[in-house]
């Protein structure tokens, strides 16, 4: 039916669309920045403030990396906030017991991965819907955090873990010639570098590895993936464990930021995480969603919060704005995909 001379929809077209899929969230980000640039006090459009926003992105951003895999596979994870809290408490308890920074951080990541393993195990073994399972662990992991923390904040030495979220990190560990030549705008909180590195690794996982392809295949058409010999259950389990570990890492950094393990922290963060992924172009029906998109989404939300704070916009306005942006992003996406299907 198509005219003969139509160009082949090949690699170029696929790449062009990947770019097009990110244009929306990126435009949204520019609009938000421009808006506050005009409205907010001068401090908003400064290098220092950009660094602040980047640091404020880290917790949601790290968790959104894992959530991108889950949403791309057609699942959902509501337990992210609780997993972050549990990981922060576990890290604090370990630091308090004198285990040192690295082992404590690893334990925190493992605590998050354990929540993910429970999620993945229940979803694949009992064939329960992810929404229900993670709604359960949303409560259970929060409860476990309170139990471990004896229902209060866990004070602990934070050691170099607090450097992760510091906007003026201690550079004394770096070789002298770097320390002296590094431009000021590159001195970001190490957590931001960690998030960037994680995002790059995750994007590679998603696009270049068998695991990433299977993740997409499951979200795109699960029966077909199974028919083609994809180990659907094993892959799903791995996805939830990975996402749990990313939430755990976010929890370790949350401990670094607060310098206490707080069982009540990150309440409701799961919705910010899902919002970041969805604003970044993912569909909750699976098969879509990119790491870069999720990062833009997380950054957009942090920018919004920061801009509102600086210009003295009350918190409730901010909440309404975030809600509107989520619905708007999904609507735009729906219109675009509707056109594509026609």
């Amino acid at each position: 039916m198509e005219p003969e001379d139509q160009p082949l929809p090949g690699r170029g077209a696929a790449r062009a669309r990947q770019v097009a899929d990110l244009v929306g969230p990126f435009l949204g980000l520019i609009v938000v920045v421009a808006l506050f640039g005009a409205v907010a006090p001068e401090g908003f459009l400064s290098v220092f403030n950009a660094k602040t926003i980047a640091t404020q992105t880290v917790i949601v951003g790290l968790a959104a990396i894992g959530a991108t895999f889950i949403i791309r596979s057609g699942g959902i994870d509501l337990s992210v906030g609780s997993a972050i809290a549990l990981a922060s408490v576990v890290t604090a308890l370990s630091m308090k017991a004198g285990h040192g920074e690295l082992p404590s951080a690893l334990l925190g990541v493992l605590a998050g991965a354990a929540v993910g393993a429970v999620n993945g195990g229940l979803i694949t073994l009992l064939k329960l819907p992810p929404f229900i399972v993670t709604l359960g662990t949303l409560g259970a992991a929060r409860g476990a955090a309170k139990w471990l923390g004896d229902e209060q904040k866990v004070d602990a030495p934070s050691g170099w873990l607090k450097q992760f979220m510091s906007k003026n990190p201690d550079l004394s560990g770096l070789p002298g010639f770097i320390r002296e030549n590094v431009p000021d705008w590159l001195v970001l909180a190490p957590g931001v570098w960690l998030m960037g590195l994680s995002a790059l690794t995750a994007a590679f996982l998603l696009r270049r590895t068998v695991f990433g392809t299977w993740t997409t295949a499951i979200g795109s058409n699960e029966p077909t993936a199974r028919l083609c010999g994809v180990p659907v259950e094993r892959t799903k389990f791995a996805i939830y464990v990975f996402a749990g570990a990313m939430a755990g890492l976010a929890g370790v950094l949350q401990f670094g930021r607060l310098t206490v393990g707080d069982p009540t922290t990150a309440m409701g963060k799961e919705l910010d995480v899902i919002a970041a992924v969805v604003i970044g172009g993912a569909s909750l029906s699976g098969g879509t969603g990119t790491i870069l998109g999720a990062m833009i989404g997380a950054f957009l939300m942090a920018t919004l919060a920061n801009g509102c704070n600086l210009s003295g916009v009350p918190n409730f306005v901010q909440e309404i704005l975030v809600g509107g942006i989520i619905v708007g992003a999904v609507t735009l996406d729906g219109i675009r995909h509707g056109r594509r299907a026609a």
Partner: protein
Amino acid sequence: MESGAVLRRRRPPRLQIKGVTKRFGGVHALRGVDLEADVGEVHALLGENGAGKSTLMKIVAGAQAPDSGDLWIDGAPFAPASPREARERGVAMIYQELNLCPHLSVLENVTLGRETSRLGVKRLDAARVRLDQVLRDLDVSSFTGDTLVSDLGPGDRQLVEIARALCLDATIIVFDEPTSSLSAPDVERLFRVTRRLVASGVTVLWISHFLDEVKAIGNRFTVLRDGETVGQGDVSETSTDEMVTTMAGRSVAEAYPRSSRIPGEVALAVQGLAGASGPREASFELRSGEILGVFGLVGAGRTEMLRSLYGLDPMTAGQLELRGEALRRPRPRRWVELGVGLLSEDRAREGVALDLSIAENITLSSVRRLANRVGAVTRQAKEAAAEPWRGRLSLRASSTGQPVRDLSGGNQQKVALARLLECGVDILLLDEPTRGIDVGARVEVYRLLDQLAAEGKAILMVSSHLPELLGTCDRIAVMHRGVLGPARPREDWTEDAALAAATGGTR
């Protein structure tokens, strides 16, 4: 040359099936099937809906095991325990609803589940070379390995599945109704590809309703009827009429009850209907006391026409007249009040509420009439209202309190019809009313429709099963690419003429 021919005769057939039986509960799906398909032939498998074709194909694909009987591939016994095992023996299935992941590229789909990798990182270079070769062999130029499947139309998607089969070294490729959703040029291309396949020694099993298509592409054929092989032969030596007779095995009048109907006034007139979801131009007049059939291929826009008419999808143009009075586009609820009911093709989701009882389903649309003085509706009231329908429709159920989920497809459909009739509908719009119903129950649905028409109800019936339309309808109109043709008396239609109209007259 002589010895070559002799040798070829002695070679065992590519696929041999002998005396295969299969029963599900009390139903004999297969009573004894024999089939022999040679290397490099297109073997057509014919039979009406419910003849056992799909059960047989599931056995060949390893999705189900036969109760008795034997299969061989190239002379070696073949008893696959799983679809994977069947695939490893070279059997590839290409189903009507295609099995692809739309978000992945062609190459990713073709290699899915058997990717070569190093440390988890995909290394698809060898697979890409192989795929490019296969696409060249198939003379495919409309897409490449990097194209996203969601960018492809149904014809191209089918070619992706064929390419996947070839990359898996399939020697037997089974096509299930391969042309039912294809445009005419895509069908031509599929024929060309199929000829290339068989020329390279692949055996193709071709399941289809379309006999002229079988005439065009098939070498030999096997006919199934009621789960048994009832005929085999060379396509070139058998006429379409002979095939039809073998498939039906009985005169059409027996299966399709028809009492005398007297068409009355025009109940519903539709002029120039167009809708956002597909229909471009549909006009018809539906009279009381008649059954008007709408035939068309899958994707022709028949369901969308009904949905637009009924206000489920947006209508963009068209005039409606109900019992002689002009009508502004009503919403579904208003239609019911006006006495017009729609039965969806998707029975499980839009026809009945599976978890509710028969009585609750039947009274669902008319429940407000059953309310007592304080506005409550008791179970007794619902069951009392539903009870008469049990006898009238010969519902096979112990009581009207039974959940609809426990009923057979045919009985579920009767419940759905009873719901419409209970709320006083006298114009029925039926979308594929016999889909997924076994042969016996179909006849009961036909009898019910005939009875309703004789009572003076106006019935519009959409179907892709041509014999049932020719058997039950008074007039038939054919839809092709969103345009509904003129309704003509069924005596004026032949199977060939209807198919030609449905495919745009290119066959």
